């Protein structure tokens, strides 16, 4: 167990460090690249939790899709590289309160040994298991989400269409 | 329409303005003055000469000349129009609205001869750099970098052959071209 815990700590540190760069980084493109590494780190964490399917989907969707579109947006707005992102702004007190609240919540949950936080049950092959689950018990939310996505896509196309 | 018919029509239309007008073979040779140039071109354009082959400048030392070579895809006639232009203030109305081909040709004519084309959409030098001074193809164009080409050999050879023939004729009176000026100090 110690080895797995060790790897977990290394990965967690890596993810936190990359996330810090994303938030605190001056150059916006470097922040985007750091974001990619955060997602990869998270995917590794999923693998540690034996959720391989989730890890692969994480890499495919987040890294392969969303960050690419993010970089797309950055590149297409010309003159973006010269603008340095302002790191500190006025709402520091409010964000500080929110952050500390979240921290307390997490500490409370992990110290009380809540059942959900304990080691997850050894799942059999995740992919087919998830597939069956999605199309049986959770069929309704699955369909609802797909309709929502469809609507979003149609909206995007209508917006992007040149007048 | 044969060239002669074109000629009659142009004579009736312009009369004195066409200082010269004759049909040699299938080519109509016309000359006119600067202010009538555009009118003649317009008339020719409407007559059916919708293809401007070539627009070139010629420097006759007494005056400049803008030469239009027109042809038509339907009639077998060609036109060779020469427009005389004053050398001091060369100004001609641009024909780029009649034939778009004239656009670049006129810019080159301005670039090489200094003939200005009134109403030209993009009146800039085309081949030389924008800050070039002078108009190279004019006969009186002098440039210290330009070493006049001495005809090495040809005249001397002829002179020798005539002398060699024994008849002691005086060598040909062709004046020796002036010695090339000493190379200029390198421009700063």
């Amino acid at each position: 167990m110690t080895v797995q815990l060790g790897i977990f700590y290394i990965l967690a540190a890596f993810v936190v460090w990359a996330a810090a760069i994303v938030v605190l980084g001056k150059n916006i493109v470097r922040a985007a690249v750091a974001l990619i590494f955060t997602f990869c780190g998270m995917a590794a964490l999923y693998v540690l939790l034996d959720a391989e399917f989730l890890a692969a989907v994480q890499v495919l969707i987040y890294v392969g899709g969303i960050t690419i579109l993010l970089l797309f947006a950055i590149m297409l707005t010309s003159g973006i590289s010269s603008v340095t992102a302002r790191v500190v702004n006025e709402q520091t007190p409010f964000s500080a309160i929110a952050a500390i609240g979240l921290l307390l919540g997490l500490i409370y949950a992990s110290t009380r040994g809540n059942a959900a936080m304990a080691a997850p049950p050894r799942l059999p092959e995740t992919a087919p298991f998830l597939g069956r689950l999605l199309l049986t018990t959770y069929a309704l939310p699955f369909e609802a989400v797909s309709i929502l996505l469809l609507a979003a896509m149609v909206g995007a196309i209508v917006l992007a269409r040149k007048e | 329409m044969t060239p002669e018919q074109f000629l009659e029509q142009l004579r009736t239309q312009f009369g004195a303005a066409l200082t010269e007008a004759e049909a040699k073979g299938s080519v109509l040779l016309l000359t006119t003055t600067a202010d009538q140039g555009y009118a003649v071109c317009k008339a020719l354009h409407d007559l059916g000469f919708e293809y401007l082959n070539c627009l070139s400048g010629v420097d006759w030392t007494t005056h400049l000349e803008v030469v239009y070579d027109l042809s038509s895809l339907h009639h077998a006639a060609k036109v060779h129009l020469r427009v005389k232009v004053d050398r001091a203030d060369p100004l001609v109305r641009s024909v780029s609205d009649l034939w778009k081909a004239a656009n670049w040709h006129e810019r080159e004519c301005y670039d090489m001869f200094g003939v200005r084309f009134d109403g030209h959409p993009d009146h800039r030098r085309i081949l030389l750099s924008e800050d070039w001074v002078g108009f190279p193809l004019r006969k009186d164009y002098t440039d210290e970098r330009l070493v006049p080409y001495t005809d090495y050999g040809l005249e001397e050879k002829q002179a020798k052959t005539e002398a060699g023939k024994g008849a002691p004729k005086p060598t040909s009176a062709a004046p020796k071209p002036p010695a090339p000026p000493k190379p200029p100090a390198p421009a700063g």
Partner: protein
Amino acid sequence: MSMTTPIPIGTQVITERLGETMEEMYVNMGPQHPSTHGVLRLMLKLDGEVITDCIPYIGYLHRCHEKIGENRNYVQIIPYTDRLDYLASMAMNFGYVLSVERLMNQEVPPRAEYMRVILAELQRIASHLLWLGTFGLDLGNFTIFIYCFREREMVLDLFEAVSGQRLNYAFYRIGGMAMDFPDGWIEQCREFLTWFKPRIPEYDALVTDNILFQKRIRGIGVMDGPTAVNYGLSGPMLRASGINWDLRRNDPYSVYDRFEFNVPVFDTCDVWGRFLVRRQEMIESVKIIEQALEGLPSGDIQAKVPKTIKPAAGQAYVRTESPRGELGFYLVSDGTPKPYRYKVRSPAFCNLSALTEMMRGCLVADAVAILGSVDIVLGEIDR
């Protein structure tokens, strides 16, 4: 008629002509760019990938050809005409020599006339092959380039056997030709023709019938008939816009009227049409050469010409069909051995002036294809 528009300096005109907001992106293609076929600078104003305006800048290869011409006598100018359109030197010599002969009303022996036609048509094939190769290269097809150059190499060998030169031949003389065909040349020429005829279907399989190739060049660089005539286009550019005009047949010079060949005309008015015209022209040229080789008369190849050529005062504008279009020479003579005024009407100069109109609304990738279809050679544009 006072001067209305002051003479603006170049740069100032550009900013006010393209004065709109600067959010469009300027891309400079050239003068050092792999697909501008020489030193031509195209300033493209892009809106995303679409070209909104294109300003060609020429003059990088300007060698004051015409000023030199006025300081040389008529025979010395022949090697200079090679350097005009260095990919079709034979056609350039042919045009110049014809115009001087027209000025002097000089007769040319029939064998020389046939030799001229054979060499000019061979040069047309070589020039179109080079065009096809580089055109394929622009569109990303590397193999057609090698095939075309393999054939062009054989034509260059023929030229080298005849004139000793591979590019600038200076082989035509006023009133005839410099030398006669070496023995065995005619058989070598026939060998090339038999080798070359089945090659065109080979190119078709690789390029013409290839859907990807057609998709790339159909419908771009549109230039309809009347505007083409208005812009003074000539050669394949004109015949691809539906205008049936070829100087070799409409205004026959030399002995072209003795050969029967048909002139390919397509009315697709776009890059695809120009491609088809040039491809078909190669086949027609092969036909002309075969007929010329059959009818090659014997006899001397150089008419009696005075030692120093002094044409009577007068002027002549003679136009011939070079591979790129109507090549005109305007010669004004004043009785001295040097021409008083020597003007070259270059086909690519006029064809290039229509580039802006063809480029508007196309994509950057099309810009390369359109420029390729215009088939420009900067030597004759800049003179």
